[in-house]
């Protein structure tokens, strides 16, 4: 008996659907009937999905295209016409977009089908997927732990096997950190390479749609479908995206930066062990280690929380109870705004709106917002200088493995510092890739992060693939079926 379709890669699924061996609807429902029946009630990765919508979508889809028959999960802040888009918030309860996000349109045109919308921290503000109006998502490797955030639902759905591909958004690490906690790949592309049209904005100069998959080759496949300029997004980079077809071509001769000062303090031993192992694998595969020094990560976190909250306070002004979502009626329009926003937004969103409003308010603009934007320039320069000496950087994705639910909910600063290694890429607009490197002694996934200069996605995927096959493993006969460690129930 052949392996169930949900266990395979997206690339393998395309072969089976295109050849007529498997119908798109069967490919989609395999994940729902199989792993979701076991995991979804406890993990709670998905917030909007129904069988009839899925049936209609696959019935009208032609079994052709680079993603023919591949089911995908979308974070609940990507607009779709067939499911609600609520950003994990009460304020958008019941909102149905009149249009598809550009990324969603490209996925449909490539033949993929939507398996559902994933849970997330409200308006993508959080690092644990505990700040959702639908309740938290849990990590399938340990149900007492968080899946990371804010795209925790997307990461968990890929990890437990509902779908081979999912999409999230990454404003300060919200794809890469949950990918690390759930043991899957997570790509934040170069800013502007994926259209933000139809992605509900949080911090517009930082937000980027990102990709989750269990295999490096599947990340490359998805990227080649959705990346590229979009006239509907004035911040997208015009023209074609970099060619990632060489994702399997190895790392011989590539130089990787090793900024060890960043994790000398405050990183769990498991995280450091994963890094050391990954560096050794890369060297065995022919890459060259280049020691580097970097600014402490706290600087980036400080700049990020001023820039991101300032932009969020502006972007979220549109949620006022007038045009969509929740309305709490009042006698005058000012009270309607205040009541709607106060009841519609959760505490973390309100906290960030207040911080952003403060940073932009008269008398504080120069001291906070402008200073943060200058710090951002400094951080970008530092990356520029590093990438003269190396092709990519190897560093942790997060200082810890998945932490326990509730552990950081009441400590905003501790939660913000979960993103200490990921934020720099958003401030600089460069691409980052989380690569799973097996399970640690704790039974939880270990991961590393690769960062490269703008448009270095091909390089990052080559390195991510080299780590997937760990240099020595035979690659051709197991091109898409690698040593992915599926969660087991405990």
């Amino acid at each position, binding site marked *: 008996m052949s392996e169930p379709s949900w266990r395979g890669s997206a690339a393998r699924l395309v072969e089976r659907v295109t050849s007529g061996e498997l119908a798109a609807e069967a490919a989609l429902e395999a994940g729902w009937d199989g792993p979701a029946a076991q995991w979804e009630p406890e993990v709670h990765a998905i917030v909007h999905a129904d069988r009839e919508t899925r049936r209609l979508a696959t019935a009208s889809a032609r079994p052709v295209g680079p993603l023919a028959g591949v089911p995908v999960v979308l974070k609940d802040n990507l607009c779709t016409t067939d499911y609600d888009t609520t950003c994990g918030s009460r304020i958008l309860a019941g909102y149905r977009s009149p249009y598809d996000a550009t990324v969603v349109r490209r996925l449909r045109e490539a033949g993929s089908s939507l398996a559902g919308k994933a849970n997330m921290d409200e308006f993508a503000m959080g690092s644990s997927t505990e700040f959702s109006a639908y309740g938290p998502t849990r990590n399938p490797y340990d149900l007492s732990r968080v899946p990371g955030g804010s795209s925790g639902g997307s990461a968990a759905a890929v990890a437990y096997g509902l779908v081979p591909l999912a999409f999230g958004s990454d404003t300060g690490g919200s794809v890469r950190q949950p990918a690390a906690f759930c043991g899957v790949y997570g790509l934040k592309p170069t800013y502007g390479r994926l259209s933000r049209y139809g992605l509900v904005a949080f911090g517009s*100069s930082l937000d980027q749609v990102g990709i989750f998959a269990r295999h490096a080759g599947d990340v490359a496949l998805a990227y080649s479908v959705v990346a590229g300029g979009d006239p509907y997004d004035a911040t997208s980079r015009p023209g074609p995206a970099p060619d990632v077809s060489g994702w399997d071509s190895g790392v011989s001769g590539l130089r990787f930066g090793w900024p060890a000062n960043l994790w000398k303090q405050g990183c769990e031993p498991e995280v450091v062990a994963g890094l050391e192992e990954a560096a050794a694998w890369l060297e065995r595969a022919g890459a060259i280690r280049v020691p580097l020094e970097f600014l402490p990560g706290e600087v980036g*976190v400080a700049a990020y929380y001023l820039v991101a909250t300032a932009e969020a306070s502006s972007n979220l002004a549109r949620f006022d109870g007038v045009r969509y979502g929740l309305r709490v009626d009042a006698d005058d329009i000012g009270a309607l705004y205040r009541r709607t926003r106060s009841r519609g937004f959760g505490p973390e969103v309100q906290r960030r709106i207040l911080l952003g409003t403060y940073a932009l308010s008269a008398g504080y603009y120069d001291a906070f917002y402008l*200073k943060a934007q200058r710090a951002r320039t400094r951080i970008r320069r530092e990356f520029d200088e590093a990438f003269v000496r190396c092709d990519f950087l190897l560093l942790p994705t997060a200082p810890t493995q998945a932490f326990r639910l509730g552990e950081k909910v009441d400590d905003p600063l501790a939660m913000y510092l979960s993103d200490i290694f990921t934020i720099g890429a958003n401030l600089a607009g460069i691409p980052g890739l989380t690569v799973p490197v097996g399970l640690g002694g704790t039974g939880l996934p270990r991961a590393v992060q690769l960062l490269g200069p703008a448009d270095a996605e091909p390089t990052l995927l080559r390195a991510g693939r080299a780590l997937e096959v760990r240099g020595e493993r035979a690659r051709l006969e197991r091109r898409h079926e690698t040593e992915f460690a599926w969660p087991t129930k405990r």
Partner: protein
Amino acid sequence: MSITRTEVERIAELARLEIPAEGIERMTTELTAVLAFVATLDRLDLSGCEPSTFAPAGAGLRADVPDADRQLDPSRATAAAPASENGFFLVPPIVENVNP
């Protein structure tokens, strides 16, 4: 740097948020902690660093003409509104009638 309770109330008004009295206390404490943390930036040498701007190379303005593919008729534009009538959003009075 600390932030006062009065400032939090003022910011809440600017942000169109109603924060209950006990929430103001908590927000004052939390925002003070976050602001103390962002003071990390004061230790950074920013000489010669202009504020970042973020327009991808080659990005430009499109022609200022209606895009037929993206136009919504009024009924679709107001379809998700909590209250609407004849393609208009319904809200409480915004301008008071001073001469009833």
